[in-house]
């Protein structure tokens, strides 16, 4: 081989090699120039990806992990897309609060369904479908699709199967087809939560199409649904380039209320928050769903951009394990609650754009009591509480998510201030899988959590966070009276009676203080100035049908 190379070098005329190099260089230069020109024309808005008259472009931070809602992990991009591409039978209405349009969790309306009504004892719920609603395949959406979809959800033993337990639905037999357009859900007990739970669970698959892709080893066509987008929602997915872009087109066959206002929505994946900001400033995207808090503060002053702000029910808290020393002592928990500098956190970490938490029940949730969390920053009271616990100092680790900058800043501030009260905290960032495992093992003494409840109701909050079987109960909290109230709330459908229960819940939690309630950050969304129609989702999952260019 070496010999061959040498003879080639000696035998080839030099001028020829130079010519080849020159030619190659020229071609490369031309291509590069052409490529740059292509890039430039894209910026000027004349490229094919430029925004048309009825097109919106949205940047998200990550591509969805799967199109299959029954088997997906906790992936907010995926869950947001599902709200827009799956046909959901019922959904929240829209209301206006202080000039902001928000989803009305007290008003759940039929969308792809015609009606969803209970029997007199509120145990049997009848879902009547609209006639003529079709999937992209042309198959009509019928009661058989609902039945197949819910059978699939129970078989999956994952997302919906878990959430259905809170309203007494545990078996596929409880879902029955009455006729082609009617389905009944027979619950084990009446529940005030039924509408809200079904609003987040009643999505439907095209069962006729799915059965074509089912096999003996994969009877629910799981493999097919993981890769192929569902159809029949407000939008259909007309293009999905893995990791890069998803194009949604309005479903013209939808005949229900509140159809999509924009023909085409292009969703591009832009992981770096700084790039989302640049593209928004340059007009290459209209909505940036992953911009950092610092960038949002700057964008408020930028030309051609507006920042939509709305109160949110997102809660930031520090959960203390009540069965792990030193937080098994209620006075130590109170000491930490007094040591946290709430105002400083809101001012410095959230730029003043957050509301102080007044209770473990989120502000704006029915029944939230503004006296439900009586703790303010007071180091003297913190030291006194610690003294009441019989100690002058305690040590613990403080766990938070590795890639969450806000939690990291929060942890540093809390560590610094808690030290003044005699509480020494070791900061422990954990990756998602380790965090999930340690949470499952319930062995984290202190951890920062944030999130919003998908159902705006205290019963749901108790079910997910404060009863002993709750999966978000990382505090390992158990109070017999809370357990009794939770059981009682299942069958308490009278609103006034429920509110009385919630008042008592907050009194108990204020005294037991399993969580330090840090704050409720507001929601901020930077968009181009001509974007209108945004409706603040109380479950964090944007309904894109409301959006349009002004």
């Amino acid at each position, binding site marked *: *081989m*070496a010999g061959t*190379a040498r003879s080639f070098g000696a035998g080839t005329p*030099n001028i020829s090699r130079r010519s080849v190099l020159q030619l190659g260089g020229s071609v490369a230069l031309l*291509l590069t120039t052409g*490529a*740059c020109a*292509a*890039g*430039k024309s*894209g*910026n*000027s808005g004349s*490229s*094919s*990806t430029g925004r048309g008259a009825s097109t919106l472009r949205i940047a998200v931070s990550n591509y969805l*992990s*799967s199109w299959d809602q029954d*088997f*997906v*992990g*906790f992936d907010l991009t995926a869950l947001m897309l599902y709200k827009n591409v799956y046909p959901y039978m019922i959904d929240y209405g829209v209301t206006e609060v202080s000039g902001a349009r928000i989803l009305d969790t007290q008003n759940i309306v039929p969308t792809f369904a015609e009606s969803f009504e209970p029997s007199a004892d509120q145990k049997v719920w009848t879902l009547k479908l609209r006639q003529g609603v079709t999937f992209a395949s042309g198959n009509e959406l019928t009661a058989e699709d609902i039945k197949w979809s819910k059978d699939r959800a129970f078989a999956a*033993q*994952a*997302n919906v*199967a*878990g*959430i259905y*337990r809170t309203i007494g639905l545990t078996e596929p037999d409880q879902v029955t087809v009455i006729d082609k357009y009617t389905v009944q859900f027979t619950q084990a007990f009446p529940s005030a939560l039924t509408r809200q739970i079904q609003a987040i669970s009643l999505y439907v698959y095209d069962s006729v199409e799915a059965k074509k892709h089912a096999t003996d080893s994969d009877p629910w066509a799981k*493999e097919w649904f*993981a*890769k192929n987008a569902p159809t029949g929602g407000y939008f259909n997915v007309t293009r999905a*380039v*893995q*990791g*890069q*872009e998803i*194009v949604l087109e309005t479903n013209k066959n939808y005949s229900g209320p509140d159809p999509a206002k924009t023909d085409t929505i292009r969703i*591009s*994946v*832009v*992981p*770096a928050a700084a*790039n989302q900001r*640049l593209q928004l400033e*340059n007009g*290459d*995207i209209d909505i940036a769903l992953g911009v950092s808090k610092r960038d949002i503060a700057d964008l408020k002053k930028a030309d051609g951009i507006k920042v939509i702000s709305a109160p949110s029910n997102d809660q930031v808290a520090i959960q203390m394990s009540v069965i792990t020393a030193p937080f098994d002592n209620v006075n130590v928990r109170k000491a930490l609650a007094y040591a946290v500098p709430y105002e400083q956190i809101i001012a410095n970490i959230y730029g003043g754009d957050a509301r102080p938490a007044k209770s473990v029940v989120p502000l704006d949730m029915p029944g939230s009591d503004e006296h439900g969390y009586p703790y303010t920053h007071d180091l003297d009271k913190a030291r006194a509480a610690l003294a009441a616990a019989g100690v002058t100092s305690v040590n613990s680790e403080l766990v938070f998510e590795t890639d969450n900058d806000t939690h990291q800043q929060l942890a540093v501030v809390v560590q610094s201030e808690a030290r003044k009260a005699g509480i020494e905290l070791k900061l422990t960032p954990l*990756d*998602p*899988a*380790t965090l*999930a*495992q*340690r949470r*499952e093992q319930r062995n984290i003494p202190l951890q920062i959590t944030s999130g919003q409840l998908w159902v705006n109701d205290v019963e749901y909050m108790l*079910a*997910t966070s404060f009863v002993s079987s709750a*999966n*978000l109960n990382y505090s390992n909290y158990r109070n017999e009276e809370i357990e009794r109230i939770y059981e009682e709330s299942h069958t308490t459908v009278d609103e006034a009676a429920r509110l009385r229960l919630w008042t008592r819940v907050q009194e108990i939690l204020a005294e037991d203080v399993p969580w330090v309630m840090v704050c409720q950050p507001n929601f901020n969304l930077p968009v181009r100035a001509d974007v209108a129609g945004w409706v603040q989702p109380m479950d964090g999952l944007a309904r894109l049908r409301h959006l349009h260019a002004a």
Partner: protein
Amino acid sequence: MRILRFVVRRLLQLIPVLLGVVVVTFLLVRVLPGDPIRTILGPNATEEDAAAARARYGLDQSLWKQFLDYLRGLATGDFGTSIQSGASVAEELAVRIGPTLELVVLAVTTALIIAVALGIWSARRADRLGDHTVRIFALIGNSMPEFWLGLVLILVGYSMLGWFPAPSGRVDPETDLAPLTGAELIDAALTGNGPAFTSALSHLILPVATLSIVIVAPLLRSVRASALEVLHSEAYVAARTHGLPERVLRRGYLLRATLVRLPALAALVFGTAIGSTVLIEYVYSWQGFGQWALRGLLYRDYPVVQASVLIIAACYVIVFLIADVVQAALDPRVRI
């Protein structure tokens, strides 16, 4: 023929090496703390739900059974099913590996060309202004984190000058490029799609430039040091003293002797570059192999981690094999 035998022998050696990688990765990923199943379940999932999910992915089986199933799958080209997405790992890998290899190959090639040209040029002007300038620039490039450098290039090239497209994706989707290899530039060339070719090229320039700037310094230093050594060697001095023409000196005596050490270093740099793409893919919204592997590791997606480590190991071995062959071709003293 000798080289062919060498290549076949090395490829056969690949089998036990990769088998070792498979065993070690399979065990290590399970020793790491973290539960992949809990990351895919909703907040209301019970222990029974988690057990059902474990059974779905075969994680309820003994370690031996899991390993044998995995090996059996590998033998048929089945890398398993992603726990996070529920999709076939082989299919996901096929989509992700092409763009990353395209980026790395172009960047390493660019860096090699720059390193050879500037390294020799710099050595011939040792300790003069041009030499110092090249060395300082190489040092600066090497010192800059690729993440920061990428953002700066985007700020200048896209936001300020408007020469390059938005750092979002790898090709304009409107060009309707039919994916074949996953490497957009190659796919566009193979399908004769001109608009897709220029679009892919325009999307490639900044990431390739970022990676090239970061990796060029060690290559350049190596070439310069080798060139200096050759320039001071007896053979070169004798040839020069005998009055051989400049072109013959440069090509016959300097270039080839200088390049002898480069293949091994280039192979190492290639491996490093595959690792460096994680951040570059993040900055340029590239969504390639690096991002996929990182996400797999963060969420303990066992099949994804196993497949990505296996692919990286295979890349290393193959690139070093190529480096050995090239070195043998350049250096007659090397017998393979």
